[in-house]
């Protein structure tokens, strides 16, 4: 019995607790990210934004959640029921399980696996299934068109993202996310965005495309596809897509922060490095970086018009892919002939 | 680990592969239609590669962790492959211009297929065998469907692709069984394992060899894995058919011989019956099924099935003499096939190419030169002495008789008698039937040259057989250390 308790139950409970500690704040962050987006957009467009529910509209996300929960879930008659229901779940689950390998500080990670970055890449490449399944199962032309666009777009941008990740891998020599962050020790000029500046830009733009955000939000283009793959969804199934999209934004920001902006490392070597204080200090910087990147996401949405589909494909295949390939060769040359 | 020295035997392959990529880039960026330039440049590349093949370090060299081997067998077979590819390219020059196939990817794909064939010939490991085979096959599937607006061409490509994928599956299954039961994929290691014939051979290994042989038999189109051949030969553009019938056949046969003899040479008793069956069935089917053909490309397909059967007789003997027979046979077969296709490609009337056998009627009166050349090839294909085809058959049957394969030899002789019927029928149609619509007169110069050289080779083989015979003997010796 003791063996069962020590060997299985205790670690099980521990892991469960870790997951809850990570996921609950994450969902809160997602909820307030929607509010932040509306507020920032409003500010940029000289409006007030939501300000009725609670002080400064702070309870708006809760109101939205309650509203969505009480809406009627609609299953279209022509829909492929099982796939239709599974699709939003897949989107949402994928957005959450990726966080298992994101390190929040030295050793502060649920699963410290050797191929962490590949895991993230794999999970983000699966994101397309939620969309394509939703589009097909809806049995609607708009939804299907959105799904087709989305799958082509995500597959195209994954290619150059993969090459960007390889350049980081070449500099670090490990696929472990913790090692990647630690390799950037020593102030913000040691972060990877300096040697890999073009790749940093490529990665961020690809992240926009991977999350189907503006200016690459063709899959859901309200103007032409009336919200694309989401058009037939309502109630909580719609809410899951919505939450998934925003969770993916946070995930992509976290990835960018880890790969190029030193993760939890402060920009100058100061402040506590060990103990609880050190962990909190690390949290602070990590969250600040994610926050800044999310702000850029929203800023871009407020600023740029939507790309045309052929322009999107041209950038992906004719600009980013050759650029990242060439840069990969250059980085490999530097690593070989000027080892650190 | 590899070093520069390891790459020396690889120079011809590297040269062809790099040139193919350079030509691809040139084709993409050149102004206008670069096809003609790329075709002739590709021919030049193949000729240079032919020189390079004989410049690699002499003797047996197994490099790159034993996956790639060069010896006199590979040198001879690669030379045949390169000649086959280069001549097919020359034959295709006029064809691709007239049939709206003039795109620079065609020669580039042929070059890459040639790299695959050279890799096949030099394979010394089941994995490198597979990689080379796939490189060649994939390029062939594409060129079979190259005229993508023609239904027949796309059908041929698709059929070839689907059946080719199936045969690759069989081959891989056999290879994995062999690996599982023997513990190595390397031919040299396998040969060491079986040398001396100690211990029993597990049944699983034999099944593996059977599957491997089935996969390879598909690639050389031996009965009962021949079904794709007539349809693909008929459907593919004629210049592509000429290519299919020449270089890939030689390469696949070389691969067949090496993959059977080199690792499993000591297990003759286990695989001999398979090869005997393949050879006998191919000879018989090649002889009988061709009788009723009206389309000359289809006829050549059945003819090639039959000739593969004859060549396999040499392999069935399992001796050095037999392998020498195979090499001689493939050299002779290459010359006859290329010459025949040079004539077929010249069968152009006002409304385009024709492929019916009856269209040859009275050719002797309208174009005596072409008729004579075609007659020489037909006599030689039938195995009439003293033409080259006779000697090809002679050496394989000698080997078979020395290996006491009497039944197989009798089947071979009988089926060549039957085969002679339809070859001679063509000669009869050309010389004794009333002429129909004549072909557009002058045979294009490159076709004429190829036909003339090939018919000279076929005619004069009896006078100067020694270079070929010595080369073949040298090649065969390399497989039996």
């Amino acid at each position, binding site marked *: 019995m003791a063996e069962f308790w020590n060997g299985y139950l205790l670690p099980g409970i521990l892991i469960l607790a870790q997951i809850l500690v990570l996921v609950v704040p994450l969902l809160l962050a997602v909820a307030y990210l929607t509010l932040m987006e509306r507020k920032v957009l409003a500010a940029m467009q000289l409006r007030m934004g939501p300000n009725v529910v609670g002080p400064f509209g702070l309870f708006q996300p809760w109101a939205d959640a309650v509203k969505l929960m009480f809406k009627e879930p609609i299953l279209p008659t022509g829909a492929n029921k099982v796939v239709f229901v599974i699709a939003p779940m897949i989107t949402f689950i994928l957005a959450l399980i990726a966080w298992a390998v994101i390190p929040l500080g030295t050793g502060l990670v649920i699963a410290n696996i050797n191929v962490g970055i590949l895991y993230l890449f794999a999970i983000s490449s699966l994101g397309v299934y939620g969309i394509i399944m939703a589009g097909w199962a809806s049995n609607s032309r708009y939804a299907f068109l959105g799904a087709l666009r989305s799958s082509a777009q995500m597959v195209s941008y994954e290619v150059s993202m993969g090459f960007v990740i390889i350049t980081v891998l070449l500099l670090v020599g490990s696929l472990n996310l913790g090692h990647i962050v630690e390799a950037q020790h020593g102030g913000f000029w040691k972060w990877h965005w300096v040697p890999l500046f073009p790749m940093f830009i490529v990665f961020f733009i690809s992240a926009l495309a991977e999350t189907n955000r503006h200016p690459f939000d063709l899959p859901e283009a309200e103007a032409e596809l009336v919200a694309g793959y989401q058009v037939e969804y309502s109630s909580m199934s719609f809410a899951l897509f919505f939450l998934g999209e925003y969770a993916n934004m946070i995930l992509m920001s976290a990835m960018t922060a880890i790969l190029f902006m030193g993760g939890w490392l402060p920009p100058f070597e100061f402040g506590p490095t060990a103990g609880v204080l050190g962990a909190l200090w690390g949290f602070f910087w990590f969250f600040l970086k994610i926050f800044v990147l999310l702000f850029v996401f929203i800023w871009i949405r407020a600023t740029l018009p939507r790309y045309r589909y052929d322009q999107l494909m041209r950038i992906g295949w004719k600009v980013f892919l050759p650029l990242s390939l060439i840069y990969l060769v250059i980085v490999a040359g530097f690593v070989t002939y000027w080892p650190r | 680990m590899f070093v520069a020295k390891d790459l020396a035997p690889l120079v011809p392959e590297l040269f062809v592969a790099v040139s193919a990529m350079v030509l691809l880039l040139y084709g993409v960026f050149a102004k206008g239609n670069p096809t003609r330039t790329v075709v002739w440049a590709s021919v030049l590349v193949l000729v240079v590669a032919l020189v390079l093949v004989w410049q690699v370090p002499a003797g047996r060299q197994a490099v790159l962790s034993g996956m790639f081997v060069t010896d006199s067998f590979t040198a001879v077979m690669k030379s045949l492959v390169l000649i086959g590819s280069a001549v097919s390219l020359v034959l295709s020059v006029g064809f691709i211009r007239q049939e709206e196939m003039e795109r620079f990817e065609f020669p580039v794909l042929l070059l890459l297929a040639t790299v695959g064939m050279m890799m096949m010939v030099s394979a010394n490991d089941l994995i490198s065998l597979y990689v080379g085979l796939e490189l060649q096959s*994939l390029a062939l599937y*594409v060129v079979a469907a190259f005229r993508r607006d023609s239904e027949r061409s796309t059908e041929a490509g698709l059929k070839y692709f689907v059946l080719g994928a199936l045969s690759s599956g069989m081959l891989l299954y056999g290879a994995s069984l062999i690996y599982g039961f023997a513990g190595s994929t390397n031919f040299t290691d396998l040969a060491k394992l079986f040398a001396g014939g100690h211990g029993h051979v597990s049944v699983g290994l034999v099944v593996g060899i059977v599957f491997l042989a089935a996969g390879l038999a598909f690639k050389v189109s031996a009965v009962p894995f021949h079904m794709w051949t007539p349809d693909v030969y008929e459907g593919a553009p004629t210049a592509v058919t000429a290519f299919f019938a020449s270089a890939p056949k030689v390469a696949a046969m070389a691969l067949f011989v090496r993959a059977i003899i080199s690792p499993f040479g000591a297990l003759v008793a286990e695989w001999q019956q398979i090869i005997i069956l393949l050879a006998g069935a191919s000879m018989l089917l090649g002889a009988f099924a061709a009788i009723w053909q009206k389309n000359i490309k289809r006829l050549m397909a059945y003819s090639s099935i039959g000739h593969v059967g004859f060549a396999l007789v040499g392999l069935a003997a399992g001796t050095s003499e037999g392998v020498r027979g195979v090499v001689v046979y493939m050299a002779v077969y290459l010359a006859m096939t290329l010459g025949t296709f040079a004539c077929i490609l010249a069968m152009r009337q006002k409304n385009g190419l024709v492929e019916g056998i009856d269209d040859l009627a009275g050719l002797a009166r309208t174009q005596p030169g072409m008729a004579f050349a075609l007659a020489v090839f037909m006599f030689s294909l039938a195995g009439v002495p003293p033409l080259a085809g006779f000697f090809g058959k002679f050496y394989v049957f000698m080997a078979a008789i020395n290996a006491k394969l009497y039944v197989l030899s009798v089947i071979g002789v009988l089926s060549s008698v039957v085969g002679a019927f339809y070859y001679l029928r063509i000669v009869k149609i050309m010389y004794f039937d009333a002429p129909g619509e004549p072909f557009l007169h002058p045979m294009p110069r490159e076709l004429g040259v190829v036909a003339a050289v090939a018919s000279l080779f076929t005619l004069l083989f009896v006078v100067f057989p020694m270079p070929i015979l010595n080369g073949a003997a040298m090649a065969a010796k390399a497989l039996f250390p």
Partner: protein
Amino acid sequence: MIVQAIAFYLFAAVTVGSAFLVITAKNPVHSVLFLILAFFNAAALFVLMGAEFIAMILVIVYVGAVAVLFLFVVMMLDINFVELRQGFQQYLPFGLLIGAILLVELILILAGSIAAPDALAPAASPAPSLDQVTNTHALGAVLYTKYIYLFQGAGLVLLVAMIGAIVLTHRKREGVKKQDSFAQFARRREEAVELKKVEPGQGIQ
């Protein structure tokens, strides 16, 4: 260890089950989705074996890219399955017979000699322990040295596949307007806009 065992049987069972559903599902899209599920569970089995790199690559390449395009095509195809299955009944007994014969033969052969006594002992080839070398390092160390020939050969195969796909599908269409972004950027204000002074009631000449 019991957790690993349970996980193994779970993933293995799902893999086999979904593989079976791939060939029996009525709807082709469902078939592809089950195929993806099978890939996914195969990746999980790789993780259980300690082959984490292969597992991730399996997910990224097969699930993330190949299967997406496959699904893409299958969704767009308009296949009438009733028609497709018409010949099926007719050939079923024949196919089953051949399959059964082959299966029996293979079982007879393999059952008699599972342990190959004359094998060259491939297991003896030294595989470093998982705690010393990561998967990625171990693969990288042989892939670009010992197996460089096969690696480059496979690269050539992919090149041929790419050329083939382009040759067989790419068509130059005439009369299609193409965007020339350099020309757009190079355009100056003077070429595009002309300022005119418009007098009241006159209009532009």
